[in-house]
């Protein structure tokens, strides 16, 4: 009985890792590839390690495997975020059919500061307000 459960868990884990690798090949863009590797691969590894716990039925092994799964669950989003941030700053292009880029024009390239408003639009609006004050001075 345990053998069947171990076989099912490890099979689905291997399938998820295969799907992650196919996604890494097929996705058109570095950011979409990051999204694939952080989700599908984490689930696949978790299922394979759970299969190992069910097979051994040992408390020491279970704690060790839980530590590995917790570590991977914590670190996979962090590393995905870090590498995505670094790739955006280094100028990796989005896919040509991507609809919108939320960070477009909202960060300073030299200082790497992010702002919630568009930097160019902010400067243009300030200039217009100054001109308006020049035209109609307050009484």
């Amino acid at each position: 009985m345990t053998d069947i459960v171990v076989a099912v868990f490890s099979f689905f884990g291997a399938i998820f890792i295969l799907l992650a690798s196919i996604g890494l090949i097929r996705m058109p863009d570095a950011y979409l590839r990051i999204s694939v590797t952080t989700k599908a691969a984490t689930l696949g590894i978790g299922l394979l390690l759970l299969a190992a716990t069910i097979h051994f039925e040992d408390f020491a092994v279970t704690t060790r495997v839980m530590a590995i799964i917790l570590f991977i669950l914590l670190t996979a989003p962090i590393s995905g975020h870090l590498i995505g941030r670094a790739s955006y700053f280094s100028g990796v292009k989005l896919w040509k059919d991507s609809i919108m880029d939320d960070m477009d024009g909202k960060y300073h390239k030299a200082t790497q500061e992010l702002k919630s408003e568009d930097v160019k639009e902010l400067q243009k609006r300030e200039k217009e307000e100054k001109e308006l004050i020049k035209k109609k001075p307050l009484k």
Partner: protein
Amino acid sequence: MTLHEFINYIIIPILSLSVLLILWRFIKGPSIVDRVIALDLIITTGVGFIAAYSILTNRPSFLDVAMILALIAFLGTVAFSYYIQKRNK
């Protein structure tokens, strides 16, 4: 079909095929970011390999190696992203 045969003839070949596909992306990758992602995924697949192998040989002590490998994958990605970000300043 015993569990031993199942892991030997189905799980390990699927994992090997996925490593080959990731290696193709690692060689082809247009930018350095794609290569870093592929390296990260190869090491993560290595953790899966170790889990399958420890079931196959009935030795749970291999799982210690899996823990260290997961740590190395995270540290490698963090170091590479730091280096990519600093290089373009």
